């Protein structure tokens, strides 16, 4: 993997790779991402031809079906970077960033032209928190959250991209938030794309372990960097009727998340009931 692009002057304009899940299911995450970037003085461009990077097909072994999507993605984003219309590509997803900046090399192994273009593009593609912290050098984005936060480290983000410090740094600077560490924060939530459907039972068992750790942490929300894992965790929490929910880190940082205030102290003990015979009115 080529090294990440270095910036001599701060990037002024980026192309947003919003990802298909954010586009279709969680547009608020996309809006939060735009807000965060603009707040830092970065202009955001949205290439509207973008669809899906092809990861579902790639992970399932359907590489023939994934390749046209990879080439298409390269055709849309790579010229923008090459012609210096944008300085970088930013995505609010560790998983889709991994697909486009790491796995395209493997997928396009026998296509030297596209592979080289994909690698050039990959070096200029950043996951949101990585871009904020490592490229822009921001730690506090002016976020405020009244409640308890915990962090779930998504697998691709942490193990493929090596991004962990960045989102944690951003969260630690959220004013008013109490950040607690859950047990096994970097353990897989069991999503795994089609794995969640094909191996539904195993995926659910893994997810239940994750939601247990989340609820045990006593956090109001669990922040993470991928809406796919978020959909999985929230799907389980919602089915279990839990109060806690997963939110994308951009939503926390853009002050989109509100929690109903709750009493953090133990509720006052009820006065002891009078002896039964008095209740019955038998004096």
């Amino acid at each position, binding site marked *: 993997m080529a090294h990440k692009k270095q910036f001599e002057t701060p990037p002024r304009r980026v*192309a947003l790779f919003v990802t*298909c899940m*954010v*586009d*279709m*299911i*969680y*547009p608020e995450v*996309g*809006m939060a991402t735009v807000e965060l970037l603009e707040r830092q003085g970065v202009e955001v*461009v*949205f*290439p*509207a*031809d973008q*669809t*899906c990077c092809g990861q*579902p*097909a*790639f*992970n*399932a*072994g*359907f*590489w*023939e*079906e994934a390749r*046209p*999507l990879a080439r*298409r993605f390269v055709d849309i984003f790579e010229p*923008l970077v090459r012609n210096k*219309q944008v300085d970088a590509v930013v995505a609010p997803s560790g998983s889709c960033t991994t697909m486009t900046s790491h796995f395209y090399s*493997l997928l396009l192994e026998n296509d030297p032209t596209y592979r080289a273009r994909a690698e050039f593009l990959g070096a200029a593609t950043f996951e949101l928190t990585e871009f904020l912290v490592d490229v822009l050098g921001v730690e506090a984005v002016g976020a405020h959250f009244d409640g308890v936060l915990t962090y779930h480290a998504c*697998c*691709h983000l942490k*193990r493929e991209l090596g991004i962990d410090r960045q989102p944690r740094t951003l969260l630690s600077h959220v004013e008013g938030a109490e950040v607690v560490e859950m047990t096994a924060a970097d*353990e*897989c939530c069991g999503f*795994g*794309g089609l*794995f*969640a*459907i*094909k*191996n*539904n*039972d*195993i*995926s*659910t*068992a*893994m*997810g239940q372990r994750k939601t247990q750790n989340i609820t045990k942490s006593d956090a109001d929300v669990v922040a993470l960097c991928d809406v796919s894992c978020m*959909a*999985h965790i*929230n*799907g*389980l929490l*919602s*089915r279990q009727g839990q109060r806690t929910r997963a939110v994308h880190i951009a939503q926390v940082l853009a002050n989109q998340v509100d929690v109903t205030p709750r009493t953090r102290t133990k509720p006052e003990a009820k006065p002891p009931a009078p002896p039964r015979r008095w209740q019955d009115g038998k004096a």
Partner: protein
Amino acid sequence: MATSTIDLTLPYKTRVKDALGNKHLKIALERSTGRMAGQRVAAMNAVDAPRLRDQVRQMKEYVLRNLPDLLEQLETNITANGGRVHWAKEAVDVQRIVVEIARKANVQKVVKAKSMATEEVHLNQALQAAGMKVVETDLGEYIIQLAGEPPSHIVAPVIHRRVEEISDIFQRELDMPPTLDPQIICSVARGVLRKEFLSADMGISGCNFAIAETGTCCIVTNEGNGRMTSTLPRVYVVVMGIEKLVPTIEDAFLQYQALCRSSTGQQCSVYLSMTSGPRKPGDIDGPEEFHVVLLDNGRVDMLAKGYGEALCCIRCGACLNVCPVYREIGGHAYGSTYSGPIGAVISPTIHMEVTDVDKLPYASSLCGACRDACPVKIDLPRMLVELRRDVVEEGETTLFDRAGMQAFSRMMQSRASYESAGKLGSLGSNLLAGFSGGAIKSLPGPLAGWTKSRDFPPLAKRSFREQWRDRLKGRKVIGANDDSV
């Protein structure tokens, strides 16, 4: 011997269902995997782990590049020391060779040290069919031999059983008085096994690594059973996969260190037994005959097929202990001698008969915890995805999956069809969600698997791109935005 309730030849789905429904298995796995993973982290952090991993990886890559030469060097040196080397292309060749050696030496009883290679080729069954008594002497292997079960972990074969069940097995098979004290259970096994060692004609072990420059086979054990297997009986046979080779003594200790720290979290094992040849005149112990069986069984093909990286594996089991899938289903659900992430890579690529082997590469969320734990840095997630590609290319997927993926790919190749599919999806999913108050409780068709245990969010009423278009209205749009919206 008891008949086992564990049947590896059942379909994958049944094996997984049985495993997930087994409460005792859950407890057993919970007790062991976390502890082993924790011990590994502590032991690896006590040294310069990145450097150790780099060194071992480089050494194993060197071995794979020079495999033919190194194997011949090993053979030359073992032969010079008075041992004999046998080349076994397939599993049946190992069976034939070892049975022949045993027959020639008039062997009645065989004691075995723990060995995955002999499990892989079903050597015990072949020896038993030839009329010999075979006794496993590793405590874990001995327990599962009594229970009639296959191993479920590379280094902890009986990890699937709790101490309560092990006690039951010993009470039933060895008339042990009821106890849950591991000390007592161990001493009962020790008493039985000591007699077997002293009356055995042949010892068989695997090989943790063999040193090419000296012709030395090394086994790493904690119980001392390996030492007795290699020194007490008249005949000693080592069965080793051809990748278990290291060039020099220094390399051997490199692999030894990585193995001990990654498997059991030890700085070094209690025993390291090194055998370079049979007993020489004047030696006080050692076997009269020393045989080494070099096992291919598809390993050379693995190299050719592009899965050679898996041959760097030193069989420490670290990837099993950290795997969130293994921790839920245990080893038997994989249906193969080799389980966990490495098993899901080895089983389809090596020459083994495994029911539903095509399902194994899919038994992973691709979380990558295995690669992080691997002392040789094997890129297991990448190989799992490549194996899935092979499954698809060989046409082993259902027509339904193929048609679905093709439709998905076509839809995503056009902005217009993507946007209309989004609109349709938004409408449909909001209707579904409307019926159940916000979240979708039940999805149709193949997606029903999702909603069995989880809610699904409806698609947004207005997608990001629609909101973005509104946002740009009335604004002066510059630069790349011109052609992008």
